[in-house]
């Protein structure tokens, strides 16, 4: 392969095109539909790894610390994220509770876990081919991780309840806010192509085009 860069098909419109070697901080877009084909970060593995480690710590805080507390007529109440899903379950809405738990706890947690393992494994190439499988799982978790939707939902709930009682945001609330920022930063700095370059091929079946 003397030619720097590679031939790719746009995942959104299938147009074949040559993507040149990119310098750090640049992006390549599809000629036809404008989809981003590739972007080059300066530290595509180490920076997302550091961010993911941070996210793991904040994730634990977000799920164990109270999101908000309420006091009304001398009564106190507070809830955490798993506590919210659990209350739904207790009230007989098991399926809804499962959807909430999945989008608010399981999907973000699994994303962090799979990304952490993937990023650690590719630091010492060649990475075994199961790393690719983990990355695939991480990417399939991504659309279902809805922390930013949840934080807006909590804010709306807070404002609704503020009519009836005194509510105070707790540590968990700030942790979720931090997690939203960290997740965005991971997605911006991470480049899956960098992982695929370092992963061992599983090698069966079709002929590959260079």
């Amino acid at each position, binding site marked *: 392969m003397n030619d720097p860069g590679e031939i790719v*098909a746009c995942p959104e419109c299938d147009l074949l095109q040559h993507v040149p070697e990119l310098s750090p901080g640049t992006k390549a877009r599809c000629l036809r539909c404008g989809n981003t084909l590739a972007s080059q970060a300066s530290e595509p593995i180490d920076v997302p790894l550091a961010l993911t480690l941070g996210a793991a710590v904040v994730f634990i805080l977000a799920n164990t610390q109270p999101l908000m507390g309420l006091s009304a007529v001398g009564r106190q109440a507070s809830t955490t994220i798993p506590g919210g899903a659990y209350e*739904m379950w207790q009230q007989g809405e098991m399926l809804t509770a499962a959807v909430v738990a999945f989008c608010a706890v399981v999907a973000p947690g699994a994303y962090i876990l799979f990304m952490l393992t993937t990023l650690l494994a590719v630091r010492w190439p060649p990475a075994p081919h199961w790393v690719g499988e983990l990355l695939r799982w991480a990417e399939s978790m991504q659309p279902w991780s809805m922390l930013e939707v949840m934080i807006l939902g909590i804010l709306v709930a807070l404002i*609704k309840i503020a009519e009836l009682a005194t509510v105070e945001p707790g540590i968990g609330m700030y942790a979720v806010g931090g997690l939203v920022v960290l997740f965005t930063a991971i997605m911006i700095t991470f480049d899956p192509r960098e992982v695929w370059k370092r992963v061992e091929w599983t090698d069966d079946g079709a002929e590959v085009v260079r």
Partner: protein
Amino acid sequence: MTATALTAARAGLVSCETCALLSRPVEAAEPGHCRRCGGKLEWRRHHSIQYTWALVVAAAICYIPANVLPVLNTTTLGSTDSDTIMGGVALLYNTGSWPLALVVLIASVMVPLGKLIALSYLLVSVQRGSIRNNHDRTRLYRLVEFIGRWSMLDVFVDTFTVALIQLQPLMSVEPGAGVLFFAAVVVLTMIAAESFDPRLIWDSGAIRRFDD
């Protein structure tokens, strides 16, 4: 440009949906698996149009009870009030927070309906082999993919309202049957958007066989 554009499929190549590696399958009928990442190779997403239609129809059916049935039942000193999604919007509006009422109205009522209409339009236009407005249709698809998750807003609002307001016997809030249907609409439309293959927009009527 569309008529002459060289796509991977036209060149006999399959792009891996996971790792983007291009492969030339030995058997066109059964492309097999990607050599690099082991992912299943497909010319176009499997039965994309049928699956997407099925999910859109299911979501449209759930959309009705989601809006008609109450999402929250509030018990205050023995008397019970039921709120539908629109009721919740009206409540927010009446208490003076109209920006929030607007956010909830857009996320809970307009976005799910808009998604159903947008996906139906994309499906019909692809089935009719349309070659017009490809750019706009691609942009519409991206918008549907991006915005879909925000409809889950009301489910989270209801969950945390229920979790906090358990001050028996003074006041308690219970979830209504509408929440489940509402969550179902969001999940079904998200899966529908994922099963729709945007490359079909760019395939002219002639290469529709990929969807079989």
